[in-house]
């Protein structure tokens, strides 16, 4: 009765399923193996573009879509000599809606005689745009006001409204910069802060005061918000100031892809290749051994009237079931593994807290599915050929005689 039912359309899948559940231990282990390999494969696919995607998101979320820096910075000299003036010039362009100059130095922030915390100290000029988001308190409104991040606030135990002392360590600043009192206006989030990094922000003029060079108006870069077309704005900036180089966020990420982070793309490619090869080899061996153990059974089915194509299809479906179920299990497993591996990699020093190495990408999911499907088909080829070329009479005779 069963073979007749199975001979009907759609039965190969049910037959393959029964072949699997008849040997639960090996089927379960095979599926778990595919799930583990599939999880690693998914993670490597997410890793290949994760950092770049995350950085693009981070840059886009900052509210500035163009970054302007000196064409060829030289050690010992500021990147942009006239930071504030350059920002004002750029802000006046029709294709630009806002531009601020940014200078960053190091500083010790101290509450009274308490223990200081070493922070990245940023000064901004021009417009009301700020490269930080206020969490508590207020934004800076005048000179000698600062905002600091949560880490700095906790490190020195301070709240908005308090007075703190800043001792700056500046590039090209005074040999011994004075300790200057600042009023803490608020607690802010700096998008590129590392988890254990103190950060502070003020005006570029206040920063120059803290450096002991009040007349300096230098900047490291100018952050620009275009009025809708970043490429056109970047072109206009390049025409206005040939001594500066304007990069859109996409161009900046493109440069990162070329200059840095190649390691993760390489390791992702290598491990993807190894993982797929490993899965292919092992599923082929599993299916081949399984088919070899069932040669008598296959010959009997052929003798009962099952076509060659039908028994070949059974093997293919068995492979598809192992890889399919394993592949489905690999998705939650891969997601959990990605969180763990991301946690490990994010311990690298000075990485922004919001940056991730593993970022979900629908394209990675499609590639994952495609690679597993190809693995299922290719892994089944050899056992399928064994079944297709099986001599029915000789196999049955061997089965009876053996």
């Amino acid at each position, binding site marked *: 009765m069963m073979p007749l039912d199975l001979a009907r359309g759609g039965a190969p899948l049910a037959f393959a399923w029964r072949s699997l559940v008849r040997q639960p*231990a*090996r089927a379960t*282990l*095979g599926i*778990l193996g595919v799930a*583990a390999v599939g999880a*690693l494969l998914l993670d490597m696919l997410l890793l290949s573009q994760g950092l770049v995607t995350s*950085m693009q998101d*981070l840059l886009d979320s900052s509210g500035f879509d163009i970054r302007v*820096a*000196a064409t*060829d*910075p*030289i*050690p*010992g*000299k500021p990147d942009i000599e006239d930071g504030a003036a350059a920002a004002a010039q750029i802000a006046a362009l029709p294709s630009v809606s806002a531009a601020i100059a940014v200078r*960053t130095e*190091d500083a010790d922030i101290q509450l009274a005689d308490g223990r200081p915390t070493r922070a990245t100290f*940023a000064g901004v000029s021009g417009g009301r745009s700020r490269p930080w988001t206020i969490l508590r308190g207020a934004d800076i409104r005048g000179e000698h006001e600062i905002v600091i991040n949560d880490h700095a606030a906790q490190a020195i135990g301070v709240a908005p409204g308090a007075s703190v002392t800043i001792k700056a*360590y500046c*590039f090209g*600043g005074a*040999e*011994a*910069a004075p300790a200057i009192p600042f009023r803490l206006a608020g607690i802010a989030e*700096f*998008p*590129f*802060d*590392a988890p254990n990094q103190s*950060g502070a*922000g003020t005006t570029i003029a206040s920063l120059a005061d803290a450096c002991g060079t009040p007349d300096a108006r230098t900047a*490291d*870069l100018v*952050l620009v918000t275009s009025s809708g077309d970043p490429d056109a704005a970047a072109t206009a900036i390049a025409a206005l100031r040939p001594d500066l180089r304007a990069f859109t966020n996409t161009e*900046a990420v493109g440069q*990162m892809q*070329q*200059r*840095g982070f*190649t*390691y993760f793309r390489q390791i992702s490619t290598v*491990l993807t290749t190894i993982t797929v090869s*490993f899965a292919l080899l*092992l599923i082929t*061996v*599993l299916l081949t*051994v*399984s088919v070899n*153990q069932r040669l008598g059974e296959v010959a009997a089915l052929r003798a009962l009237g099952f076509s060659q194509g039908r028994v070949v299809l059974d093997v293919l479906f068995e492979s598809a079931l192992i890889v399919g179920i394993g592949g489905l299990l690999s998705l939650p497993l891969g997601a959990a*593994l990605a969180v763990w*591996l991301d946690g*490990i*990699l994010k*311990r*690298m*020093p000075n990485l*922004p807290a919001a*940056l991730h190495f593993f970022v979900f990408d629908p394209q990675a999911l499609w590639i994952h599915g495609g690679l597993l499907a190809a693995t299922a088909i290719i892994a089944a080829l050899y056992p399928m050929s064994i079944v297709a070329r099986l001599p029915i009479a000789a196999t049955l005779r061997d089965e009876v005689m053996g």
Partner: protein
Amino acid sequence: MATHRKDEPFGPFGPFVTFGSFVSFWAFVVLTFASALLVAQQPETPSILISRQLAELEQIAVGDEVRLATNEQGTDARAFRVAGIYEPTPDPMRLGAVPREVRLHLTDLLALERDASTPAGTEHVESINVALRNPGEAQAFAADVNARIPGVFARGTTGAAGSGSTFVVLERFHLAIAAVTIVASTVFLLALTIMLVDERRATVGVLRLIGLPARRILLQVLLEGLLIAGAGALFGLLLALASEGLINRFFQWRYDTALIFVKVTPEVAATCLAIAVPLGAAATVAASWALLQRSGLRLARR
């Protein structure tokens, strides 16, 4: 020692701040040098070193005279003699970036980039590397410098790396991936050994029927597992050793670097053997265990 942190991977406003350090002054000088001229060697011409990659790119040889400038127009260009060509120290963090570098004596560099308003001897340097007679005193020395010289930040290089350094983190990442790979391999190995043991079910049944105790058969299975696992692990090691040179040569060619990407050390080989052999043998025994709990008659029955 360092007085600021502009060399960090990310400043508070993203990667852009660091582009200045990627496009180093050396690269800048190289990109703007005016020409390479073969002239008679003059004793007063300062000497420089050129990276191999730059020398190959611009066809520069030892003894050549080149002119370096700090601006694209080459208005302040000065002549230098190429004293040698060097292989840059491989830097994994700059993989993919061809190091087109020039090394000058610090005094020559300062003289090159100093403008007329800066008195000689007052130029700025980014950092000073200090080698102590007793490296164990690095932290105390750094603290002493920080206390005595305002505006300077000194730190020991060993302490700067610490457990959170990039390469320590990468090592942990590699170990995590290796652990996942081992788990996947073990699962597959168990599936395979279960099938292989099942295939020999009748043979084991006959051995039980002729009087061999389960423990004796298990010992045989264990020895067999050890042999197979040992042979497999040795084959894996030989494969790794054979591919080591190929992988290194390919990536060294691909990135034009002397960096070593794969190195099978005795420690790595020993770790692989220590994991693979017991794991393989254990998988064989585990797969056979359930089979040996059955009676000989049941096993031998067709």
